[in-house]
């Protein structure tokens, strides 16, 4: 019973911030500075999600996450398909952890 209450509570507090903006933003005219600020958010958010989290892909071995990240950056610069980028980064990380551990 307690668990159901927890799941329900988590669902409510997680979904409210997700669904409110599309429901209400259009009733308000956004100032232009705010619209251009919003355009910068994806770059800032992804950067913040990537770093420093990527260092803890393998706990206590930041070099492994860095190697995987470097692989992804190089492949992305050379316009590799996103699935190729993911697969090769997983491979490099996996080889790295086999080699180190």
């Amino acid at each position: 019973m307690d668990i159901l209450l927890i799941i329900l509570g988590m669902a409510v507090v997680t979904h409210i911030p997700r669904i409110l903006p599309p429901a209400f933003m259009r009733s308000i005219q956004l100032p232009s500075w705010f619209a251009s600020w919003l355009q910068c958010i994806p770059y800032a958010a992804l950067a913040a999600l990537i770093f420093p989290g990527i260092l803890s892909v393998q706990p206590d071995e930041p070099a492994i996450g860095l190697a995987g990240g470097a692989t992804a950056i190089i492949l992305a610069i050379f316009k590799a398909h996103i699935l190729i980028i993911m697969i090769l980064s997983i491979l490099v990380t996996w080889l790295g952890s086999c080699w180190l551990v």
Partner: protein
Amino acid sequence: MRIRQDFALGCKAGLPIAMGYVPIALAFGTLAEQSGLHLPLAVLMSAAVFAGASQFMAVSMLLAGAGWIQIVTATFFLNLRHLIMSMTTAETLKHLPRHWTSLLFLGLTDETFAVLTLNSRQHNAHRASLAYVAGLILTAYAAWVAGTFFGSGFAWLIPASLGSGMSIALYAMFIGLLVPAVRDNRPTIVIALVSMAFSWLLHQVLDQGWAVVGATVCGATVGTMIMKRK
């Protein structure tokens, strides 16, 4: 027929997310099972909440004996970053009908946000339609729920070394989205670097949820100011 085509395109765009989610969902199902949160409840949590980091946090708090108010409060703060992501995505998708967008945004995560706002191919080809967004989000959601189901049901088969953190797959996906977007719009590299610096600093003093929110806001603000001056 346009709808079916767009839905399929959306599913295709959601494939990298699904690939990143499956191992994490397997790990979540396994951990939940081992922590006494058995199959129907683990799957229910994944289906109802659909927010990976907070689900891992909830299971570890349950194990530590936390009460529901603590768990729900912590979940709220950890997931508050979705407010900014939802505002940004809603602005990108403002051509879509409002109520349907709200419904689909139940499935807004770090990853679906990332693909919806930064997938440059999608912007060049045509504006994202409702069917495209639905295909993308449902693919990610299905992978998360199915992964939890298998992780929970086959916990005895899955090695503990699968890990509980975000896997390299999702970081590689984020990089694979960010690098081409920055290349298409070079000055945005300033935003990314400033945000990473803030993120590193804030992770030293705040928990993960707030550090990401703080770094995103600071990075976008400083980035906007610097880019405007040029």
